[in-house]
């Protein structure tokens, strides 16, 4: 499903060049629930971004569903992101000008879905993360954990084949964290959704199929 071959990523600023990823090889078969762990700054988010086609590797080859990705601005890639990928950002990235339910509808906005159906699916997704009572709030009126759950609802609303989750339980108490894990596990089991999750929590990682550890931009296991 996801194939990374010899991926390197470096960030260049005026003064220094940071190697965020070095010669990374990773393949995630369809239907797998994979977790990624590693110390802060080791390149976990960078790796997830590259898998989610929102960052280009400096070197190496990315293939999704058997097709190599080349043009990151094309409408084909946009379509792929829309239909196949659901992203949960580490810092949520909700749109503050839009209400919670409008935020959750976002991925459906770029599909042929009627407004009514969009609203229904969004409310359903909010229900799953236990936030239907906040549908008409705005992101600035939510707590960190609530924002995180909105971000999760947005990622699952379009039933993508792949969910990329950057510390989806990082801001939640253990009870809420378990619930989110349940949701993800169920998506994985019932719909066969491929899930790649970055986490700092060994307990969460244990619930997944496989664990990949990173250190300084390299795979250590």
């Amino acid at each position, binding site marked *: 499903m996801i194939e990374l071959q010899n991926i390197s990523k470096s960030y260049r600023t005026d003064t220094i060049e940071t190697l965020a990823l070095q010669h990374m090889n990773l393949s995630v078969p369809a239907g797998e629930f994979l977790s990624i762990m590693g110390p802060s700054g080791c390149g976990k988010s960078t790796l997830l971004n590259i898998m989610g086609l929102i960052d280009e590797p400096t070197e190496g080859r990315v293939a999704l569903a058997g097709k190599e990705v080349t043009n*990151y601005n094309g409408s084909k890639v946009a*379509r792929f992101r829309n239909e196949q990928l659901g*992203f949960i*950002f580490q810092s949520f*990235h909700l749109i503050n000008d839009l209400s919670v339910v409008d935020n959750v509808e976002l991925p459906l906005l*770029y599909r042929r879905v009627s407004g009514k159906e969009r609203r229904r699916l969004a409310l359903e997704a909010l229900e799953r993360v236990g936030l239907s009572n906040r549908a008409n709030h705005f992101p600035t009126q939510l707590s960190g954990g609530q924002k995180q759950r909105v971000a999760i609802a*947005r990622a699952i609303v379009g039933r993508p084949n792949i969910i990329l989750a950057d510390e989806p339980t990082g801001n939640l108490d253990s009870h809420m964290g378990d619930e989110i894990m349940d949701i993800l596990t169920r998506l994985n089991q019932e719909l066969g959704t491929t899930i790649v999750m970055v986490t700092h929590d060994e307990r969460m990682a244990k619930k997944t199929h496989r664990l990949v550890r990173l250190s300084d931009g390299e795979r250590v296991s």
Partner: protein
Amino acid sequence: MIKNYLTLALKVLRRKPFYTFISLFGISFTLMILMLVTSMGDALFGAHKPVSDLDQLVYTPFIERYTEFYDTTYTVDTIVMDDGALRFDSLQSVEPNGSMNNSNGPMSFHFLDEHMRDFENVDSYTFFSDASHIDAYLDGRKVSLNTYYADAGYWQVFDFDFIHGLPFGPDDVEQGNKVAVITDRAARNYFGEVSAAVVGSEMELGSERFRVVGIVERPLIDDRTVRGDIFLPVTTIDNRQYTSTEMYGPFQAVFKATAPGKRESIKQQIEFLADNFEMPPESDYENIRFRPGTYVEIFAGSTVMENDYDKAKLMLFIPVAVLLFLFLALPLLNLINLNISRVYERKSEIAVRKAFGADSRDILYQFIFENLVLTFIGGLIGLALAVLVIKYVNANDLLGIVRLSFSVQNFFYFLLVILLFGLFSGLLPAYRMSRTNIGTALR
């Protein structure tokens, strides 16, 4: 899809009341000013009845007599020849020294009659006087009337709207018939009504009686050539004035060219007349000139007191244009600035949308729609403002008798200009943003 963009735009604009307010203010204010200025420009310089053929008219309001003074300079070069003899080379030059005696004013009927009847490329022309006031009496009540003495050509050059009756014709002028054309306002003031019954009634003007032959609509424009309350045949003016052989008198001439392009030819013929004019020997002056001009030229010349009309137009219109430009540039620049910063401010929103499947086109459409919605609402407000201000100006006679009108065509034209400004200012940054890397934008 369009509905999506539209509702999205409305949502975002509602969430940013301050930005929305400033943008709407900029758009509607700019529109209103543009509408007001063009409406005033049209009222002042546009063709309106009874001066519908404004672009064919050449005005000759006065004659100027002048004598230029010259300095004569002798230059003598002295050269010493080989044999020691001196040789002289002398040069005499005569140049105007800038000082001059002159006097100007409107002309006598006799002068116009004698010299200005046979120009080419003239469709029609008129000699008339706008300088008299006559007190009319009715039942001991006095009504003061601004009186024009005109020939029959006056009614051809100017296309007054006759409410009742007809203009006086060449026969009336030739025979000195005591007939009058009056405006509706004069009719109301004197007869108390504007009706067909007024035609044929007599008016007591000074010591004479005139029969009304026509009632015209009073022109609501600020043009000195058509601002009379009452128009009488030129032959009924004080006989001394009619027959005076002086150059000066109360008359001026207006020529209607056969086409706008022929006005230049008429001006040249008038200038030719001046250049070849033989001054009576007893005159205090050596030359004459007329300074014929179009309506705009005469207006500019008299406003900035400059006889060179090309210069006058520049002196008048460049400052006006610069002021107008500055006045409009401020809200427009503000709009552009707002638009650009707004796009950059929404960098992460754009990146998030792309991460969830929006392509560059979706992003562009979204910004286009936001702009369209803003311009549309701003346009509506601007429309309302412009209509209100114009109504207010007209209702309170803020521009004297001049009436402003609302041009739908101009309105849509300006709306389009503002839309283009908005699109260019918002689209270019939006386009660039839509192509930036999502990952970097979301740091």
